[in-house]
């Protein structure tokens, strides 16, 4: 193993920084033993949660304190952690969106948190010293965490 199993980025709160961070995460996952589905879930979890922080966490995210993004890899699980000093927001307390309405009645948006909650294996949220700390776990089927298939 010649890759570091841990990465950390400080991300500024704008869309360009978001896509830059997404590419850094992709590069980190390259070469690790991660399936296409697991890569998708990590990328989605990062995008949805980081977008929420940028859009709703700050009055002016681009000029606020950067968001700390870290990713750790073991053969059984990837842990994605987002830490921000924005408004208190616990995504585990979001309601479920209406997903069965016909097209003309559907609310636009509100799906991101729902998708991540359904596709990731678990999420933990803490509010510590004025910061939101969100950890999302994606179990790796090729690793030791393979006992449960979703």
């Amino acid at each position, binding site marked *: 193993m010649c890759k570091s199993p841990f990465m950390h980025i400080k991300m500024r709160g704008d869309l360009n920084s*978001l896509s830059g961070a997404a590419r850094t995460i992709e590069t980190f996952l390259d070469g690790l033993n991660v399936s296409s*589905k697991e890569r*998708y879930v990590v990328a989605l979890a990062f995008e949805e949660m980081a977008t929420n922080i940028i859009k709703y966490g700050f009055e002016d995210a681009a000029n606020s304190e950067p968001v700390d993004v870290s990713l750790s890899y073991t053969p059984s699980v990837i842990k994605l952690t987002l830490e921000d000093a924005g408004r208190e927001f616990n995504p585990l307390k979001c309601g479920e969106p*209406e*997903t069965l*309405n016909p*097209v003309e009645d559907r609310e*636009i948006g509100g*799906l991101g948190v729902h998708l991540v909650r359904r*596709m990731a294996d678990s999420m933990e949220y803490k509010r510590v010293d004025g910061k939101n700390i969100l950890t999302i776990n994606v179990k790796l089927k090729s690793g030791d965490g393979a006992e449960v298939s979703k």
Partner: protein
Amino acid sequence: MKMSVSESGSFFKVSLDGRLDANSAAEAEAGLFDVISKCGGLLLLDLSGLEYVSSAGLRVMLVAAKRIQQRGGKLAVHGLNGNVKEVFDISGFTAVFKIFPDEASAAAFLNA
């Protein structure tokens, strides 16, 4: 993301390839609206080259579907790959959109 548009008889076909995410959503929305304004309301969306879609991308498809519906048109989708299919299922889009197993059946629906 790469978007390609072609005209096929009575409808337009749009292929969305690559990643439809927060970064490319605005471009995809503008492109789709442009096609919808020209296509008379019949649109075939080919997602066989779509590797990744997030809620920002789903929102674009929902907005496009609403606009087509307002014009009395029809939208047919085909080519969902495994991961994209799962996102459609979880978000309820599989029930909301007309999804077909291949281009021929999608075209038949638009031409009916």
